[in-house]
């Protein structure tokens, strides 16, 4: 995040304008149509050299459970293929690493399609990708960029909360209190949910 990157609006606009091919179903085993490893290889090529095959292995999976993550990789491939990044001299291996890290961080907690349709998620995707590449949005100080990332990213926020004084300890005590047999025994509420 130490380097100033492109304007956030540029990346958000680019996400909104994602072509249908980059929103299509990723190939996972017998399902899906887009070979995400091939797209990732093309993206790496745009940044200089052909990617070694071993670096493309995480971009393919026979497991249907990888669908959300690979859908997000595909979307991030489109965003990172912007001219601004291509002219920034980023190493292809670094681009591939950032794509994977971004998708791995964001995919467990939201439907990948929401990073295209939901304004907050679009911002989360743009900021996370920038952070993974070592940039912050143009015109923002480091502190502003960090604050904003915490506000839009659940993962960042969880990390930030637990880093504050006493919060991790209090959270541990709450989890213990909830797990006690006495808490489990509950109390009368007279209807169910």
């Amino acid at each position, binding site marked *: 995040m130490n380097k100033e990157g492109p304007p956030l609006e540029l990346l958000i606009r680019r996400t909104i304008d994602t072509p249908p091919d980059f929103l299509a179903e990723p190939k996972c085993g017998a399902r899906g149509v887009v070979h995400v490893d091939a797209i990732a290889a093309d993206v790496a090529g745009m940044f200089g050299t052909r990617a070694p095959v071993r670096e493309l292995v995480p971009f393919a999976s026979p497991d249907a459970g990888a669908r959300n993550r690979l859908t997000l990789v595909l979307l991030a491939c489109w965003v990172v293929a912007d001219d601004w990044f291509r002219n920034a001299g980023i190493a292809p291996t670094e681009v591939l690493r950032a794509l994977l890290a971004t998708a791995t961080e964001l995919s467990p907690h939201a439907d990948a399609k929401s990073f295209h349709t939901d304004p907050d998620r679009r911002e989360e995707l743009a900021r996370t990708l920038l952070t993974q590449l070592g940039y912050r949005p143009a015109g923002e100080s480091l502190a502003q960029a960090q604050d904003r990332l915490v506000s839009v990213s659940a993962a960042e926020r969880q990390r930030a909360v637990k880093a504050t004084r006493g919060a991790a300890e209090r959270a541990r005590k709450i989890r213990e*209190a909830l797990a006690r047999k006495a*808490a489990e025994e509950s109390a*009368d509420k*007279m*209807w169910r949910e």
Partner: protein
Amino acid sequence: MNNELTDADRYPTLSERGRHMLGFLQQHSHAPVFRNHAGNRLTSDDLIRVNAFIAETVSAKIGWHPGKQPPWVTEFIARCYTDVPWYRVLGAVPQKLEDVRPTTRADLARDVALFVPDNVALDRLINFRTSGTTGHPLLIPSHPVVAASYLAFHKRALRRFGVELRAGRGSVGVALLGYQRQCFTYASVIPTMDEAGYVKLNLYPDDWRDADDRARYLNALKPEIFSGDPLSFAALLELPVTWKPQALVSTSMTLTPVLRARLEARFECPVLDVYSMSESGPIAVADPSAGGHMLLQHTLFVEILDEAGKLCAPGVRGEITLTGGFNFCLPLLRYRTGDYAALDFGGPEPVLTGLSGRLPVRFRAVDGTWVNSIDVNHALRDLPLRQFQLHQDASGAMQFDYDAEDVLDEAIAQRLHSLVGPLSSLTITRTRFEGTKVVQYASALTPS
């Protein structure tokens, strides 16, 4: 601290008459085998607080103008940003609710402890366990005062249908009915109703010395209200219960019009269909004459949001999103429920229209009997599952998909087999749902 509760902890204000009621409920010749112990845990101070809340709630005005938030919301946002770690880390307090990023069940499932305000004492914390519709198992932090406050919404909902609770000393107020292979059951008293009796029962035959005792016991208790869900009420219809309560209150799953009509005809009383969830408590009660569900909580602000998180216009369907609530252990700030409806402002109070909630799901066991989705929740409750779904096709074959850190296939198979029998066509797959929405329970065989 000693983890075991005593009766003095369970019933801190129990009088001699209350003790007599407990004895009547527990030692009746037709009583079931009560599997558990629990109580109201209310102190004298708690009682004052709960009674005041009930008095306020039953007659409070609920409403706001479309596009505007009630005045209390601004202060509520500030309190969350001061006292709740999850929000405090964001710094500056937003003045408008629309500037608050919505939270989801997935946020709570990550670590619900981060949503508990700093001022909540932990020594009386209780939990309610829920799996919801998205398959994220979750422990909801709560408190005896919160649990007792549910009565306020019972009363408000019943009043709408012309029913005033009158049960008190020497009579039974509420029988909460389940129909599950395993069910938490016990007897208690309701101190906010002058120690009227309360029982949580399982209508499943295994919980009774004689299956015929189910009807005998209910007829003997004469509860003023039967509370339950569509599955337990369907089971109730099969029993020769002659007692006519003042009302039936159905929660937890969608009550179909057919079942509602059958229950009304049989028990000759109003049958209330309440929309409720563990995270918030009771939200609304269906009122066909109003064309939808009437809200029940005067400190719960309801918004309808579209997929992009923008406010829907009145009458437009979107996701029900909640702010406020009465559970002071888990204040909700723009909490996306995963349920969908529209808000109509045509009448004196906002009405939720076109609500689509959870339909009851039953799975067919190998021996032809039925197993409820609640039983599946119960059987799997001790397994560290992040998310799961169970589907049964028309042939009876079952597919169980789960997301967990460890491989749990064997433990899951063992538990499902104990529920449905030695099913040969059970497929268990460990996967990563990775944020995708799941239909947690589905069965092509669920009877209508």
